[in-house]
């Protein structure tokens, strides 16, 4: 993958610095971001250095201290924004001795607009393809941000996370790796399947979703939030996956793509139980002080999805 297109003065300058490494040192000052998207694509590209990198950027860029110095204020800004949204969330969640029940209740009470429901019943082919392009930025690296959390966990939570991740990564069979199943679905439906192919097309909301996952995955301090995010993601996946699969079938689009979502109906019915009860539950048993962070991560997952749904449904002219 090559660096994405810059979206403003900050990303233009930082991407230029990235390309110039290691011959030229990174500039000490960069212009301010002029739009949230400019900051978001810059942070996305800086994070990408820790995943697969870019063909036009030297591999040493990942740990270049001057690039890390660009990244840090962008992260602080993102985390501050996400936390402010969590703090202003109107209905505080219940805290009882039964964490799993509380957690499922929080997720059930959160009723944002659903893209999956729209796809199931109304979306046209172009809208479904639009959505798949946007989703591909994450699905082609599905589970990767969470993999960073593994070494940071106490034993029982770690074992549970690996039980889930093992399934995400195909149980040893490369053909069943979820990101690979998605790539096959993309190809079957006539879209590009290379890693990061559609980054230039995605709106701010998608960049924020991806950046939030990387932020939580890369900072040990945020391990609770990363797992709360995972649990909320899994707990809102099986029913929407069925709706997406039905929508794709309704339009007569590629069965391989419907199959990807079908796979997630059953898989995520398992994963949500593991994520809430075992992964988060066992983490809390050892580190009870992470409870708030778990909820922060969960809320962030649900809230960012709401924001995306609002944005896309408005763009598609879907009735409210």
């Amino acid at each position, binding site marked *: 993958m090559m660096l994405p297109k810059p979206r403003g003065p900050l990303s233009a300058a930082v991407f230029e610095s990235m390309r110039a490494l290691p011959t030229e040192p990174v500039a000490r000052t960069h212009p301010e971001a002029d739009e949230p998207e400019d900051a978001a694509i810059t942070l996305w590209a800086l994070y990408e250095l820790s995943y697969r990198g870019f063909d036009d950027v030297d591999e040493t860029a990942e740990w270049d201290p001057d690039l890390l110095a660009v990244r840090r204020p962008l992260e602080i800004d993102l985390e501050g924004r996400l936390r402010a949204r969590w703090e202003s969330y109107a209905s505080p969640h219940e805290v009882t001795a039964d964490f*799993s029940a509380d957690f499922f209740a929080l997720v059930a009470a959160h009723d944002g607009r659903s893209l999956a429901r729209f796809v199931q019943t109304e979306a046209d082919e172009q809208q479904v393809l639009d959505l798949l392009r946007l989703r591909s930025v994450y699905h082609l690296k599905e589970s990767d941000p969470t993999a960073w959390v593994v070494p940071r966990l106490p034993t029982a939570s770690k074992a549970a996370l690996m*039980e889930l991740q093992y399934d995400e990564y195909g*149980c040893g069979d490369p053909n069943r790796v979820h990101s690979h199943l998605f790539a096959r679905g993309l190809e079957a439906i006539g879209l590009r399947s290379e890693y990061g192919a559609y980054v230039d097309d995605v709106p701010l909301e998608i960049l924020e979703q991806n950046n939030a996952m990387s932020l939580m995955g890369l900072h040990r301090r945020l391990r609770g939030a990363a797992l709360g995010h995972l649990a909320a993601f899994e707990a809102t996946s099986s*029913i929407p996956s069925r709706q997406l699969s039905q929508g794709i079938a309704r339009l007569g689009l590629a069965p391989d793509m419907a199959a990807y979502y079908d796979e997630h*109906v*059953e898989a995520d019915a398992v994963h949500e139980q593991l994520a809430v*009860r075992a992964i988060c539950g066992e983490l809390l048993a050892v580190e009870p002080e992470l409870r708030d962070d778990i909820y922060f991560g969960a809320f962030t997952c649900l809230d960012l999805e709401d924001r995306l749904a609002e944005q896309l449904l408005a763009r598609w002219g879907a009735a409210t």
Partner: protein
Amino acid sequence: MTDVPTYPHADVVLCPGGPLLLRGKHVIEDSSGELHETTRRVTALCRCDKSAKKPWCDGTHKLLPEKLTPS
């Protein structure tokens, strides 16, 4: 005395309000006598009887009023 604990770890887990988790490979005979083989390391079996993918759980239990969910 050791500080290194042994963790409880069940192969069959009843999830309150939700499915039964089954670890390992199993063949399940449903109520009409049909056989279903598990395909993943951990499988969720429907206990609320409302799944569209029986015998597997598909998350439908979350849409049911509490009194209809398994204890």
